[in-house]
């Protein structure tokens, strides 16, 4: 690991090659392990946490990798595989670990490190046993040794290693205990000089062996694995994975072979039973439980409170209230700072650049777009910090346990609760938070309904409209009704989508309730940073580009006459007003007026007029249409866009002049534009419509294609249109709130 090690003279020949070798040629070492086994902590401790985050081919699962330089000059690439209990897979996501170990899309690794939680040895050894069966050099890291010791579990690691056929190294990753020994064992494994007796393979009955050999024959045609052990491992993997699965790229011949082998006297259960029998024998030989170990674990004591029918719910409510308060209120100062910084930057750059299209593009397109991206960062960081704490402490699994029934009623996963709740603050971090849900179908369902929860960007729109068309004593009720509608819409949409577009058997709940553990600050910080970075790089670029497009639509084309008129006014002001503060105020006022004066010539206005016949049955005219188009940049932009349309640049939702303009606005025939009914229709449209391009950008990133964001946009927009249409038309026919 140390640079000095690489320069050690006796290794000069090899080390020179390693130092100059391109990264891609580093032998790869995979880190496999159960969820909650301490795998990520070990990865960070081994590699110094300089992870490179990429994607596995064709799938949105993060591939975290980092360099590891061993003493003696061996340079490796360590890959942190997704946590898994078994190599067997039913979906493309679950297949990632097996594909990496067995070498499906890339060459087989030089070695595999299986992280096994020493306090839950039997379960972790099942995965280790599967990996050993591949014949690849394997090292077992026995993690959480401190917990095992305090539970009175004494492990003879050498004995365990001899029986398993892979060296077992006890470690406590946070304290760096055992890491040197682990690095040495990895080096030996890669060099293939681990000093271990050969361990015989699992002894299957002849009938089962014959069935597996039939599968091996088709595996040979499919992948031509390098070794007999790998071919056998692939056959066993196929036996336990294929059939009733959603795996991509399994050749028909393999499906047929597995179907034939399992139709009668399925050898699969027997294979699993024999593996566990072997593991039980290892554990009996190598593990002793000390006398006087605590009978009731701390976790069990804590769970008696946390999963208590009354106390548990009370605590849950407090935790969720804190999370929500944090997202809503604590992120506010940071969001304010971002907005102020962007505004200051805009002013600064505006002062430095000459007037013209380039300046407008930079100030109102690019810098505003960067602001549109950065403004999400405080909430994303906070949410992932919270989720990291909930997940690493073990509480998130309890949330899923407690809420599974409630959420399951509409077909949602128990873990969908946190994303749904977060959606009331902002859909962007909420969509990203669906990653805690393992099944792809459950995750996509959650992503499809989260944008219906009433995010904080809708609030300014409600506030403006309620203040304009409802009396103060109706206002609170109307606002409540909008939030209620959004909850009903989200749950209803889940219920319907589950039975139509995302139809399928409810995935089983097989959920580990891990022991409670103190989250580690370093892991939390790294995880939060990786999420923020991934947002900035992947979704941020799309949001920036779309912001510029929306800005372009509402700013171009311009009328040269208007431009010349305002240029003259500016020049005049500069000559007449001497005091610089007053001059700035006047220039800013002129800029706002010019924006309003130019708007009728823009594409957005043309579009607004073009869609007027379509939105008129909802009670909206072209000006509201322009506001809706502007709202694609971010919903709250509706307020400032409508402000510009009504000649009131820089207006916010509390602005009295804007409210008065709305009240006074009429259709050409003199009917008022804003009535309680049309206001209601507009607010309902905002609750239901997919108007946030940032959400669409994040959904595209998280689902890995255009299919789901397109579906999301279409279904929400159609839903919004139909409901607003019905409300306005029925309301008009009944004569409700039209005057």
């Amino acid at each position, binding site marked *: 690991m140390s640079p000095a090690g690489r320069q050690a003279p006796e290794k000069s020949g090899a080390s020179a090659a390693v130092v100059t070798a391109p990264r891609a040629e580093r032998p790869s070492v995979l880190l496999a392990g159960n969820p909650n086994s301490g795998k990520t902590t070990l990865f960070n401790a081994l590699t110094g946490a300089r992870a490179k985050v990429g994607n596995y081919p064709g799938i949105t699962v993060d591939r975290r990798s980092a360099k590891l330089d061993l003493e003696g000059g061996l340079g490796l690439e360590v890959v942190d595989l997704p946590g898994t*209990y078994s190599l067997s897979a039913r979906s493309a996501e679950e297949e990632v670990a097996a594909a990496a170990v067995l070498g499906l899309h890339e060459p087989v690794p030089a070695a595999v490190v299986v992280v096994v939680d020493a306090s839950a040895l*039997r379960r972790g050894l*099942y995965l280790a046993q599967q990996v050993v069966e591949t014949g690849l050099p394997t090292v077992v890291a026995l993690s959480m040794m401190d917990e095992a010791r305090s539970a009175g579990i004494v492990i003879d690691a050498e004995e365990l290693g001899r029986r398993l056929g892979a060296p077992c190294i006890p470690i406590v990753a946070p304290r760096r205990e055992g890491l040197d020994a682990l690095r040495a064992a990895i080096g030996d494994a890669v060099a293939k000089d681990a000093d271990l007796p050969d361990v015989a393979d699992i002894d299957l009955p002849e009938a089962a062996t014959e069935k597996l050999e039939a599968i091996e024959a088709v595996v040979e045609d499919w992948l031509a694995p390098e070794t007999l052990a790998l071919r056998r491992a692939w056959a066993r993997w196929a036996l336990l994975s294929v059939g009733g699965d959603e795996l991509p790229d399994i050749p028909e011949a393999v499906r047929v072979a597995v179907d034939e082998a399992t139709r009668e006297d*399925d050898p699969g*259960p027997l294979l699993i039973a024999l593996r*566990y029998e072997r593991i039980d024998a290892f554990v009996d030989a190598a593990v002793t439980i000390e006398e006087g170990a605590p009978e009731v674990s701390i976790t069990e004591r804590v769970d008696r409170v946390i*999963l208590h*029918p009354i106390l548990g719910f009370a605590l849950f409510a407090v935790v969720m209230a804190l999370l929500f308060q944090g997202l809503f209120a604590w992120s506010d100062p940071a969001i304010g700072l971002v907005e102020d910084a962007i505004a200051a930057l805009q002013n600064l750059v505006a002062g430095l650049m000459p007037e013209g299209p380039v300046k407008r593009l930079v100030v109102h397109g690019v810098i505003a777009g960067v602001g549109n991206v950065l403004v999400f960062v405080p909430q994303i960081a906070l949410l992932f910090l919270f989720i990291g704490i909930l997940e690493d402490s073990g509480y998130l699994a309890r949330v899923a*346990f407690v809420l599974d029934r409630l959420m399951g009623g509409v077909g949602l996963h128990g873990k969908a609760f946190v994303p749904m709740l977060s959606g009331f603050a902002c859909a962007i971090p909420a969509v990203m938070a669906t990653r805690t849900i393992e099944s792809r179908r459950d995750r996509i369902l959650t992503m499809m309904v989260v944008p219906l929860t009433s995010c904080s960007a809708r609030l300014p729109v409600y506030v403006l409209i309620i203040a304009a068309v409802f009396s103060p004593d109706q206002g609170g009720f109307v606002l409540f009704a909008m939030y209620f509608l959004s909850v009903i819409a989200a749950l209803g949409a889940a219920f319907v989508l589950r039975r139509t577009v995302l139809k399928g058997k409810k995935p*089983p709940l097989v959920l580990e309730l891990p022991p409670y553990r103190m989250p580690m600050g370093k892991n939390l910080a790294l995880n939060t940073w990786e999420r923020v970075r991934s947002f900035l790089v992947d979704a941020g670029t799309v949001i920036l580009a779309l912001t510029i497009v929306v800005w372009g639509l509402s700013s171009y084309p311009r009328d040269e006459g208007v431009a010349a008129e305002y240029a003259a006014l500016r020049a005049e002001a500069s000559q007449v007003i001497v005091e610089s503060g007053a001059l700035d105020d006047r220039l800013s006022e002129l800029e706002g007026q010019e924006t309003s004066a130019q708007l009728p010539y823009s594409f957005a206005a043309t579009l607004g007029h073009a869609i007027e016949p379509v939105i008129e049955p909802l009670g909206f005219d072209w000006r509201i249409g322009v506001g809706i188009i502007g709202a694609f940049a971010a919903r709250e932009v509706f307020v400032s866009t409508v402000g510009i349309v009504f000649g009131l640049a820089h207006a916010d939702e509390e602005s009295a002049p804007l409210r008065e303009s709305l009240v006074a606005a009429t259709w050409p025939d003199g009917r008022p534009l804003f009535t309680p009914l049309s206001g209601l229709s507009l607010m309902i449209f905002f609750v239901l419509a997919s108007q946030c391009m940032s959400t669409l950008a994040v959904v595209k990133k998280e689902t890995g294609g255009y299919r789901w964001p397109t579906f999301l946009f279409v279904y929400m927009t159609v839903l919004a249109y139909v409901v607003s249409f019905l409300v306005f038309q029925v309301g008009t026919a009944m004569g409700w709130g039209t005057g």
Partner: protein
Amino acid sequence: MKVKVHFNKTSALASDEEFEHLNAPVSNAPATSSGARTLADVKVGAVAVITGVEGERPLAIRLMEMGLLPGTRVEVVRIAPLGDPMELRLRGFHLSIRRDEARGLAVEPE
């Protein structure tokens, strides 16, 4: 594909003498359909031994790979406040499954 698995001690493949120890002295019909007790009927705090796994193959395999095999001792630790799912303790760890899934696991009292 709706392949069902019935795995109990009478799996034909384990009938050779060498593997007979995997067979336990229980009924040979799939226990769940013969009205015997399943894990879903076990009371909180009670310990039961699994005698058979039955169900659609992918789920049955998943449960078995998590360690819910014939012969395994399972304690029902608690039921979630809303009545489902249930929390189990087996092989030194805690696992949660729904009653629907537990119905595929035939058990006998310890």
